């Protein structure tokens, strides 16, 4: 399935990945429940503050899921950055992926490709990774 996403959201995620470098950055994009349409960018704090790991803060995580329930939203995209490796899910990413309906977006800030950045999307279901096309919609 293709991820269709507005160019401004892509730009904001890439910007966040550069601002938070050398730590990994992370966040979600929410949309109306059942829409598969990413509209609302929510950068999250990387509670791990690490260049090799990210984790949503436990309280932020609860607040996020409460909001989804109360406002009938869903997590359409879960994104994070890899700082020195390619934008492909690591073993850790695959092991902890827990939203079978979400697009898992990886961006990379590795130096070889600076100042360009990779922006790629995957489905991760039961440990199986499938890359999917990304269609960027211009404003």
């Amino acid at each position, binding site marked *: 399935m293709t991820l269709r996403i507005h160019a401004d959201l892509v730009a904001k995620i890439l910007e966040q990945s550069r601002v938070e470098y050398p730590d*990994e950055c*992370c966040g*979600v994009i929410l949309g109306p429940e059942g829409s598969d349409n990413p509209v609302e960018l929510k950068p*999250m704090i990387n509670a*791990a503050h*690490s*260049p*090799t*790991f*990210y*984790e*949503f803060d*436990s*309280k932020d*995580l*609860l607040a996020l*899921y409460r909001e989804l329930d109360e406002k009938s939203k869903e997590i359409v995209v*879960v994104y*994070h950055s*890899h*700082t*020195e*490796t390619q934008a492909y*899910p*690591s*073993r*850790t*990413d695959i092991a*902890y*992926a*827990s*939203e*079978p*309906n979400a697009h898992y977006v990886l961006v990379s800030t590795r130096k070889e490709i600076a100042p360009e950045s990779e922006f790629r999307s995957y489905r991760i279901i039961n440990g199986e990774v499938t890359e999917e096309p990304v269609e960027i919609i211009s404003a």
Partner: protein
Amino acid sequence: MSTASSTTIDVRIPTILRPYTNGEKVVTAEANNLGDLITALNVKYAGLGERLLENNELRRFINIYINDEDVRFMGSLAATLKAGDSVTILPAVAGGCK
């Protein structure tokens, strides 16, 4: 009346664990602390306990909350439950390049 001392608790189940609860988003079980609650859940929904525990401890990348509080700050499996408490299970959103 034999189990009059146990309290019925609502438990919110995340999407990824709903295959264990026949698709139910909220289930109930009776217990007075979190460890007993997980045992009771596992009796009703075989296999669920193993997704929450490892070596009789809460798995690192599973978050469980009693009302608004992460149980890791409440004694983990020993955290007590009282009437009206609501339990939420959420897998951590985590990963990294390794």
